[in-house]
């Protein structure tokens, strides 16, 4: 480790400690003060220790890619809104409120990206410091919006991790990648497109929390995949066209297979379509469906008969049991029982209580989910 490495390692650690002190300890959430502090850091690093900016390549193509992917993303999600509905934005709707939010967003993003560029240019030849820069910028963004109270329980900590931390980190991975290869301009454009628009639009597509988190994570990672084509093209520009094309096709095929698999996972877990999956967390059906198994559910199959395994909700709990009796009293009434239980369940179900019918079981697939659920309940 040389002096340069140690110097910038220290600078980045001081940034984290100072920000942590400000937000977590002093609880100072003044946005404009924060922006001024970051600007001061940029000035100190940039102008007191000048450097020549690296001549980045393929800027125009990268900008085009960012614009197309971002606008495509908004087009698709808002088109989906016509099917799943919209929710009103909770951000301020007054002109002054919108201007205030947009002004903050633009100021914050520009300063953050200036800081990112300055740090990346300084630590470009040290991979570990480039990664640390990504982590530092993520923490600087997050410290502003989450507090220690969010980690009061395991459950809220996991919710915050999924809702804010992971999407923010994924976004910063792309922004760091983009600044490294293309410069801050592309990062600023992408960050503004993802962020500032939220304060202007009056409605959002009413997508579930899970899908929102998946899209927030996938979007920047897809951006890396798409923009990496430009990087690879530059890296191999002396190679012949046919070899390049073969490599590109292989890459795209691999990516497509990955995405088809992930699409299937997201479709089943998000419960937006006809089919869904559920991890079984109790042993009431031991023998046929064990704890940790995953059941595949068809929500459209409404023809129930004795012996069918169904999924229903009772007193806030999702239960997977077998139908043992069907009565017909002013509509069908279903009596259920767990295969491992001694007695029939003490409730009566109607068609409205039943979510769907189990089609088949996948052994052991739900073990991580059940283990995590038990850990959160302790």
């Amino acid at each position, binding site marked *: 480790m040389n002096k340069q490495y140690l110097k910038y390692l220290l600078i980045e650690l001081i940034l984290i400690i100072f920000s942590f002190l400000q937000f977590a300890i002093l*609880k100072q*959430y003044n946005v404009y003060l924060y922006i001024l502090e970051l600007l001061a850091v940029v000035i100190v690093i940039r102008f007191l220790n000048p450097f020549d900016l690296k001549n980045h390549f393929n800027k125009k193509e990268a900008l085009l890619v960012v614009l197309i992917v971002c606008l495509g993303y908004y087009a698709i999600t808002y088109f989906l809104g016509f099917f799943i509905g919209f*929710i009103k934005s*909770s*951000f301020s709707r007054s002109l002054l409120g919108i201007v205030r939010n947009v002004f903050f*967003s633009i100021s*914050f*993003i520009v300063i953050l990206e200036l800081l990112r560029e300055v740090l990346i240019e300084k630590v470009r030849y040290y991979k570990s410091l480039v990664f640390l820069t990504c982590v530092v910028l993520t923490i600087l*963004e997050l410290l*502003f*919006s*989450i*507090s220690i*109270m*969010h980690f009061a329980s395991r459950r809220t900590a*996991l*919710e915050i991790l*999924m*809702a*804010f931390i992971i*999407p923010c980190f*994924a976004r910063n991975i792309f922004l760091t990648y983009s600044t490294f290869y293309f410069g801050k301009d592309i990062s600023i454009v992408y960050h503004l497109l*993802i*962020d500032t628009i*939220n*304060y202007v639009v009056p409605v959002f597509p009413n997508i*579930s*929390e*899970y899908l*929102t*988190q*998946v899209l*927030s*994570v996938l979007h920047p*990672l897809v951006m*890396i995949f798409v923009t*990496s084509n430009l990087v*690879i093209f530059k*890296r*191999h520009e*002396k190679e012949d066209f046919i070899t390049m094309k073969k*490599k590109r096709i292989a890459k795209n095929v*691999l*990516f497509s297979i*990955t995405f088809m698999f*992930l699409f299937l*996972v997201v479709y089943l*877990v998000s419960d*937006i379509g006809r089919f869904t999956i*559920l991890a079984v967390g109790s042993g009431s059906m031991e023998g046929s469906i064990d704890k940790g198994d995953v059941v595949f559910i068809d929500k459209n199959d409404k023809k129930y008969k004795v012996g069918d395994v169904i999924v229903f*909700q009772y*007193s*806030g709990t*999702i239960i997977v049991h077998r139908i043992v009796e069907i009565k017909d009293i002013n509509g069908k009434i279903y009596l259920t029982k767990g295969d491992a239980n001694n007695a029939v369940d003490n409730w009566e179900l109607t068609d409205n209580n039943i979510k769907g019918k189990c089609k088949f079981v996948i052994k052991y697939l739900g073990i*991580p*989910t*059940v283990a*995590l*659920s038990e850990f*959160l309940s302790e």
Partner: protein
Amino acid sequence: MKNTKKETKKTKKDRKELITIILAIIIIILGLSIAYSALSTTLNIKSNKISHASLTWDVAFETGYVNAIVSGTSSTGIKCGTASVTTSTVSVSDTVLYKPDDSCSYPLIIKNNGSLDAILSTITPITPTSVSCTTNGAEMVCGDITYKLTTDASGNNLLRTNSILEKISGTERVYLVIKYTGLGGNTTSTQYSGGFTLVYKQK
């Protein structure tokens, strides 16, 4: 020979980057799916969290199922159904009350975990389908039963619009109080179900 070595090195670098990106995507998406499945107690959760902007919005009830604090002197059992609480609504079904002062009180918590101060914009009653109601903000009278959203357990101080919930861990304790306010007791069981939806906006 030199060129070939260089090309092989570049190709290895590309492959490494590509595999890293793909593995990262798979691990993150699978991790999110496992975590979401572990957290879900209902099959589909809709949320008003806005997490992909630098100004985060996260104002919601602490969700789940809440049991009532029961009070009253009816000899026949008062039934207080479990309150179903989502991010912005609270509703109760299967409540049976007989005499004046029979009541079910549900303690609830609203939290602002986002980075913006929030102001309570609207309180919308969810009216039961089986009876006609008169509504007035955080109070709804349906026949002999009155539903209130209050800031105290006894049901005296109604929750008001324009109340502010501060950013980053601002908390408001509210109570859904369902009380028998009719003149006489019911001789037959009557089930009522209703609730309220709260909408918060940026202050």
